[in-house]
C-alpha cells in the first residue's frame, strides 16, 4: 500500500483521533493517535501490510508530564516507515496490548513493563523479560528518577517462573552455560521423549542498561564507541545505525565518500559474520571440519579489518558525520586481494556444504515455519529470507551508498534451516560483489568527516535501519538537551528472531535444538545490550601474531 492510500485509509478509520505528519524525511510517516485508538491503529497498519519493527517507550514526564509510546512499522515494498505515537498520563501508563495479534510485539511490551512500569492490557504473557530474577518489583530502571548505577538489594519471590510444561513432557534445561549457546540465556525445552513440545525463554542475563547509560552519562560523539560494543560481531552496524539516527534527527548530510566507506565496512562485516556463522552451524550439527575451515577462510578478513580500522574487529571506524579512517589506494588493492582469495575459498566451501547430503539430512525440514507465520513473527534477515520473505533493508530502505549499488537478494522458500544456510552462503558472494562495486564507484576524494554543530536541536526523532548480517537493526533516537540522546532505543535482529524460535522448535527433535537456535545466529549480547568493562586489563602489551600462536601452542610463557 502506498503512503498516500495508507494515510487515506487511516484518516477514514480514525478521523480526528489521528494526526498525520511527516518525519525527518518523506520516507518517515508519523502518526499521532489517541491512546484509546492506539491498538486499533496498530492492527490496521499491520493489516495494511506493515511489518512490525519494534516499540519505543519513553519517560517524558519531565517535559510534558506523560509517558510516550511508539510502535514502528515498515512498509518494505513501498520503502517507507510509520511511527505510530501515543502517550499516557504519568499516573496511569496503560496501553492496550497488540501482542495477541502481532506476536512480534510481545517482547517490546514486556520490556516496557519491566523498564518503564507500563501496563499492556491483554498481553498474553505479562511476565518479567529483562530485569534480573532478584530485581525488586516497582523499580523501573528507564524511568528518569532511577539513577543509572542503582544497585537495589536483592528481592525474594520475584524470580521469573518458567511456563508450565505441557502435559506428559519433561523440561530439558538448556543454558545459560551450555555448549550450543555461546552467550548466556536459558531455554526451558519441553520434550516428550526427544520431540520438542514447547519452549520457554529466559534471557537478558547480561543486561547492563546501555541505553540508560548513554541517555545519562555520555555525549553524542561518544555513543558510537559504546554502540559498536553492543555486539561482538556487528560493530559497524550499530555504530552506523546510531550515527544515521542522529544524522537523521539533526538533519546532518554526510559526505558521499564516507557513505561508501561505511558501506564497505558493513559488507566486510557481513562477510566475516556469515563465515563465522557457517562455522558455528557446522559445529552445531557436529561437523567440526566445516567449523575450522570456515574460520580459516574468515581469518584474512579479520586481518584486513585490522589494517582498515586498527582493530581486529570492525570497531572504531564509524562516527556521527562520517568515518574516522580513509581507504587509501593501497588499502583498496589490499581489500581486492583479500576478496579474491576469500571468494575462491568460499566457492570451494559452498560446494562442499551445499552438495553434502548428510548436511541436507540435518537441515532440510528442520525448524520449518511457513512464510505467513514468518511474517507474523516479523522474522528478519536470512531467517526470513530462508522462509520466502523477500525483505532486505539495503534494497527496501537504502542507506549509506546502497542506492547506487546493484546486488541480488537471495530468497529461499524451503522455510527451514537449510533455507537460511543457502541464503547466507549466497549472500557472501553478494557482499563481495557490493564491496567491489563500492570500491569502483566511490568518489576519489572528499571529506571523511562532516563537521557537526556543537549543539543539536533537542527532541527531534531519528530512525535508522541497517541490514546487519543477521537482519535488520533498528535504532530509534530522540535528541536531548544535554548533548546526549534523550532516548535511544536499539533493536538488534536477534531480539525479533529469537521470539520466533519457540515456534521453530515445535515438533522438532531435541538434537536439532542447537542448529535451530543457531540458525538465527543468535546474538544475545545485541538482544541484552550488554556492556562489559574489563577492569583487570591494567597494563598494555602488544603481541605479535606469531607470539600469540606460540602462546596458544607452546607451554612456556613468552
Amino acid at each position, binding site marked *: 500500500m502506498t503512503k498516500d492510500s495508507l494515510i487515506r485509509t487511516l484518516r477514514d478509520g480514525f478521523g480526528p483521533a489521528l494526526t498525520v505528519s511527516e518525519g525527518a524525511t518523506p520516507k518517515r510517516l508519523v502518526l499521532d493517535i489517541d491512546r484509546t485508538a492506539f491498538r486499533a491503529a496498530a492492527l490496521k497498519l499491520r493489516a495494511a501490510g506493515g511489518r512490525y519493527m519494534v516499540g519505543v517507550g519513553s519517560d517524558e514526564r519531565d517535559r510534558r508530564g506523560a509517558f510516550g509510546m511508539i510502535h514502528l512499522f515498515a512498509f518494505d515494498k513501498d520503502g517507507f516507515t510509520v511511527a505510530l505515537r501515543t502517550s499516557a498520563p504519568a499516573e496511569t501508563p496503560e496501553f492496550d496490548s497488540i501482542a495477541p495479534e502481532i506476536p512480534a510485539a510481545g517482547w517490546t511490551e514486556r520490556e516496557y513493563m519491566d523498564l518503564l512500569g507500563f501496563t499492556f492490557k491483554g498481553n498474553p504473557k505479562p511476565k518479567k523479560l529483562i530485569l534480573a530474577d532478584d530485581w525488586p518489583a516497582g523499580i523501573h530502571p528507564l524511568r528518569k528518577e532511577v539513577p543509572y548505577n542503582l544497585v537495589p538489594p536483592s528481592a525474594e519471590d520475584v524470580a521469573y517462573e518458567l511456563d508450565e510444561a505441557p502435559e506428559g513432557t519433561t523440561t530439558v534445561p*538448556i543454558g545459560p552455560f551450555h555448549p550450543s549457546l555461546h552467550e548466556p540465556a536459558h531455554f526451558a525445552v519441553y520434550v516428550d521423549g*526427544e520431540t520438542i513440545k514447547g519452549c520457554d525463554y529466559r534471557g537478558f542475563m547480561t543486561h547492563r542498561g546501555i541505553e540508560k547509560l548513554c541517555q545519562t552519562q555520555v555525549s553524542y560523539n561518544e555513543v558510537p564507541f559504546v554502540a559498536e560494543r553492543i555486539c561482538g560481531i556487528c560493530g559497524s552496524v550499530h555504530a552506523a545505525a546510531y550515527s544515521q539516527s542522529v544524522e537523521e534527527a539533526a538533519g546532518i548530510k554526510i559526505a558521499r565518500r564516507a557513505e561508501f566507506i561505511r558501506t564497505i565496512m558493513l559488507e566486510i562485516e557481513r562477510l566475516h559474520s556469515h563465515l563465522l556463522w557457517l562455522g558455528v552451524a557446522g559445529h552445531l550439527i557436529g*561437523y567440526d571440519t566445516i567449523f575450522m575451515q570456515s574460520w580459516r577462510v574468515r581469518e584474512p578478513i579479520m586481518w584486513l579489518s585490522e589494517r582498515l580500522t586498527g582493530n581486529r574487529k570492525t570497531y572504531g571506524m564509524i562516527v556521527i558525520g562520517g568515518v574516522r579512517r580513509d581507504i587509501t589506494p593501497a588499502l583498496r588493492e589490499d581489500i581486492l586481494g583479500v576478496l579474491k582469495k576469500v571468494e575462491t575459498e568460499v566457492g570451494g566451501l559452498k560446494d562442499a556444504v551445499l552438495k553434502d547430503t548428510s548436511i541436507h539430512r540435518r537441515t532440510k525440514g528442520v525448524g520449518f515455519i511457513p512464510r505467513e507465520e514468518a511474517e507474523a513473527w516479523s522474522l528478519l534477515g536470512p531467517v526470513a529470507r530462508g522462509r520466502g520473505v523477500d525483505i532486505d533493508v539495503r534494497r527496501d530502505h537504502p542507506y549509506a551508498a546502497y542506492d547506487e549499488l546493484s546486488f541480488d537478494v537471495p530468497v529461499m522458500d524451503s522455510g527451514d534451516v537449510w533455507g537460511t544456510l543457502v541464503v547466507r552462503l549466497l549472500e557472501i558472494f553478494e557482499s563481495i560483489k557490493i564491496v567491489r562495486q563500492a570500491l569502483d564507484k566511490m568518489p576519489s576524494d572528499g571529506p571523511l568527516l562532516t563537521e557537526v554543530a556543537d549543539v543539536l536541536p533537542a527532541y527531534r526523532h531519528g530512525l535508522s535501519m541497517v541490514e546487519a548480517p543477521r537482519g535488520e537493526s533498528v535504532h530509534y533516537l530522540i535528541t536531548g538537551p544535554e548533548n546526549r540522546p534523550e532516548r535511544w532505543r536499539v533493536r538488534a535482529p536477534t531480539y525479533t528472531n529469537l521470539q520466533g524460535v519457540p515456534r521453530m522448535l515445535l515438533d522438532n527433535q*531435541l538434537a536439532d535444538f542447537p542448529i535451530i537456535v543457531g540458525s538465527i545466529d543468535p546474538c544475545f549480547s545485541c538482544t541484552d545490550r550488554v556492556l562489559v568493562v574489563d577492569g583487570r586489563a591494567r597494563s598494555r602489551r602488544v603481541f605479535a601474531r606469531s607470539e600469540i600462536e606460540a602462546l596458544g601452542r607452546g607451554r612456556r610463557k613468552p
Partner: protein
Amino acid sequence: MRALTYAAPLINALVFLLAAPLYEGVLRKLAAKIQSRQGPPLIQPYRDLLKLLGKQTLNSAGSWPFKLAPLGAFAAALAVVVLIPFGGRLGVFAGRLDVIVVIYLLTLGGVAVLLGALASRNTFALIGASREMVTMIMVEPVLAVTLILGAVKLRSLGLAAAMPGAAGAKFTLATGLMLAVYLLALQAFVARQPFDIAEAEVELLEGPFIEYSGPNYALFKYAMMLKQMFYAWLFVSVFLPWIRTGIYPADIVLQLAAMLVVFLLIGLVGSTNPRLRIDQAVRYYAVLIVLSLAAVALAVKGW
C-alpha cells in the same frame, strides 16, 4: 609354548593399555590436519588420562552404582581385549570361553555406562543413556554377525572363529558383504561422527558422562579407547586374515600397523560428516541389520 598361552592374555592387556591412547592421539592429530589445525601432540591422550586421574572426583549421585559404573566399563573392556586372539595367538581362555562371551562382555561395558548415567540423575545423562542404549541395541547384530560369520561355517563359536583366516576359511561373498556392513557400522561401534549421538557434545554435553570427572571419567575414556582399538582389531582379524606371518611378535606388529589404517579411516570419516539424529541413525542401523542377516544366510549356504 604353554607358557606363551598363559602370557598371551597379559600381553594383550599390556599392548592394548599402552597403545590405546596413542591411537586416540592419531585420531586427534588426523582430525586436526583435516581441519587445517596443528593439533595436539600424539601423546596428548596419555597426558589427559594422567591429568584426569589426579583431579577431584565430583559425585552428584551419592549411590554405589555411580561409583561402580566406571570400574565396570573399564573392567569389561579390559576383559574383552584379554580374551581375543591378538597377534593370532589363542590364550589360555580360548578353551573355556567363546565369542558369545565376548559379545556379552562388550554389552556389559555398555551397561556400566548406562548404569552410571542413570545413577547420575542428570537429565542430559538420561537422554544420552537412552540414545546410547538404542545405539547398542541396533549395532549389536552387526557386531554379533561379524564375530559369528566364521563360526557358522566352521561350526565353532570358539575364539579362533574370530580369525577365519587362521582357521582356513576362504574370503567369500558373505565375508565381502559383511566387510561392507562392518565399515558402515564402524563409526557407530567407536561412537564417532556421524554416530557420536549419545555423547552429542553440542546438545547433551557428553550425555552419559556429564556428571563424571577426574579418575572416574579417566576410566570411561580409557575404556572407550580400548573398545575403539578392539573394533579396529576385529576388522583386521576378520577381514584381513592374510596379514600374518605365523611369528607371534611380528604378527602383533603387523596387526597394530593394520589397525592404524583402520584408525585413519575412522578419523577420516569422522571428520567429514555431521552428526546424525538418533531417529535417522536407527533407520540406518536397521538397514545394516538386514544386510548382516543376509550375510549370515549366505555364510550358512557356504557362499
